[in-house]
């Protein structure tokens, strides 16, 4: 290989402009696909009564009908239309995941803010508390909490808030510490801003970006955990149409594959959409990932 081919030039960076374009575009494609699917699910959730062909709770048909033109996703063991149940399931999973993530972000973010702002022993105590909650695999701690409080969808959300706030606390604390020491915050203090105003005006806006990324990535996680708890029978209770408990239903009526397949597909596509979105956002906002992207391949 003595002669330089265009490929070598490309690799060596002489055609870097093209490379840069490619590099930036691809992840955005993934994020855009995620945004599109997530949007589709939001639309389905909002307009569920218009989209669903039947009442999700009506037991009007023969049980275990195969998917057909009349019932695209078939019917379940009580003769309910599976498609309608999947559509209405979006009305439960999406808002609950959103609520769960907002609550965790608010609580964890608040604690992280306090920790990073006061430092010293307050920081020490709060961060040891965070370590403690990280010591449990999430679903196991959530199971203990729901078992102690009693199984219901409300308690499942509470339990998942208990297990998911610590990651926000840790991230926000780190950001507040590093941003608090940055030159522009110090100069804003020098021109006479009080610490509280500096925290609100200079620090908080810069904490928001990474927290949004974390929350978007967490949204998918929250849906998975919530569906998991419902699958275990510790979340939504029958006859509510919830994706996780519908899969559990399918597990009990194993040979009728359509009972579990379609609600599972709904969980998968919506979680994947949020993960695509969060992944793209992280690449767009994370300076380290960008620095890596700019570097040449060895």
């Amino acid at each position, binding site marked *: 290989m003595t002669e330089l081919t265009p490929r070598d030039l490309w690799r060596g960076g002489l055609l870097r402009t093209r*490379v840069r374009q*490619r*590099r930036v575009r*691809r992840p955005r494609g*993934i994020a855009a696909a995620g945004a599109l699917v997530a949007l589709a699910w939001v639309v389905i959730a909002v307009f569920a009564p218009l989209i669903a062909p039947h009442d999700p709770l009506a037991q009007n048909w023969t049980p275990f009908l195969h998917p057909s033109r009349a019932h695209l996703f078939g019917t379940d063991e009580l003769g309910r239309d599976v498609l309608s149940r999947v559509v209405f399931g979006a009305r439960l999973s999406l808002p609950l995941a959103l609520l769960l993530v907002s609550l965790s972000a608010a609580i964890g973010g608040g604690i992280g803010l306090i920790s990073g702002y006061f430092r010293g022993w307050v920081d020490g105590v709060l961060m*040891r508390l965070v*370590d*403690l*909650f990280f*010591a*449990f*695999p*999430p*679903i*196991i*701690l959530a*199971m*203990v*909490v*729901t*078992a*102690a*409080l*009693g*199984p219901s969808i409300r308690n499942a959300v509470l339990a998942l808030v208990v297990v998911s706030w610590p990651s926000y606390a840790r991230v926000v604390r780190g950001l507040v510490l590093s941003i608090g020491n940055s030159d522009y915050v110090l100069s804003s203090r020098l021109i006479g801003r009080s610490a509280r105003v500096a925290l609100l005006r200079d620090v908080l806006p810069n904490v928001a970006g990474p927290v949004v990324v974390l929350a978007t990535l967490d949204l*998918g996680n929250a849906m*998975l955990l919530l*569906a*998991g708890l419902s*699958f*275990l*029978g*510790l979340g939504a209770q029958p006859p509510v149409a919830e994706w*996780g408990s519908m*899969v*559990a239903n*399918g*597990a009990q009526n*194993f*040979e009728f*594959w359509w009972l*579990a*397949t379609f609600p*599972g597909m709904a*969980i*998968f596509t919506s*979680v*994947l959409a949020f*993960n*695509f979105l969060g*992944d793209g956002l992280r690449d767009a906002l994370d300076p380290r990932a960008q620095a*890596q*992207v700019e*570097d040449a*391949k*060895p």
Partner: protein
Amino acid sequence: MPASELANPQPFGPGRLASWWASRPVLSFVLRRAAALVLLSLGITCVTFVLTNLVPGDPAAANLGQLAVGDPTAVAAFREHYGLNKPLPVQYLIYLDHLVHGDLGVSEQTHNPVRHDLATYIPATAELALISIGIALVVGITLGVVAALRRNRLTDHVLRVISLAGVSMPIFWIALLALYVFFFRLGWAPGSGRLDPGANPPPHLTGIYTFDALVSGSWGTLWDALSHLMLPAIVLAGWNIGLLTRYTRSAVLDVLQEDYIRAARAKGLRSLTVIFRHVLRAALPAIVTVLGLLFANAMTGSVLIETIFAWPGIGQYAYHSATSLDLPAITGVSLFVAVLYVSINFVVDVLYGVIDPRIRIT
């Protein structure tokens, strides 16, 4: 004696102790970590204690079940045993004392001591988790290295989508589909359970069937156990494969930028030699740090899928005890899993600190 001590001899007193400490960074690092581990474990018992006391209503009723509540002597004995008539801090100390003596309470559902139940169910889950983590390590690291080497090409983007799909899959759903397709439809995989119905387990050594069968030389049983393991282990590995692919990719990318890799390439070493001898060796410590996370994922997954595969492990035990509100059992499981989890993280931390001196400072 370290050079620093020779150059700067200290008189007796606290300064001497400090310099003794400073001259043994590894020991002080390990001891500090161990102290943190002990504190964390104490904290875990605190959390489980608070949760058991959260139960609305009478703890005696919750722990003894409806039948025993009618029996006043049983209730009185229960109250005495757990010091329920004493103040909370004292109750906590009594709880700790029980834990130290291995008393995790009695399961309401099986009527066995929880410790006994855990001992029965742990080997099955250990076997499943170990095999699945092994699969995840091999597949995940390979895919991660490939993604890093083919960075920003089509392969990388495809792998990115695959790994995101891996962490987005509801594992209980995939388990169900896999069982339906490979067992019910195709008949490639054996059905649920650890062995074929009617087959005898190998002589009990560890309770890990594949290991016991291997040691006792029962090849039929070994094959039987392995074939039952494959499907749940692969399903359980999915999440971890996604995680490891992403993680390995970024760790390898960090290493690839180093000058010594360029030098190794430049002096004409074959690509594979460079990857194995230089890149992977440098990237592995960073990859090892996720071992704890892999374990946590495997535990989460086994809670969700063991019921589907009728796998008699602690995942299924946790599921049954949580759904029947059997608080001593589910608390026992969470206590065990959490302490094991922080211990794994402790070992990983120490290993990492010993390998990489830069970590010890923090």
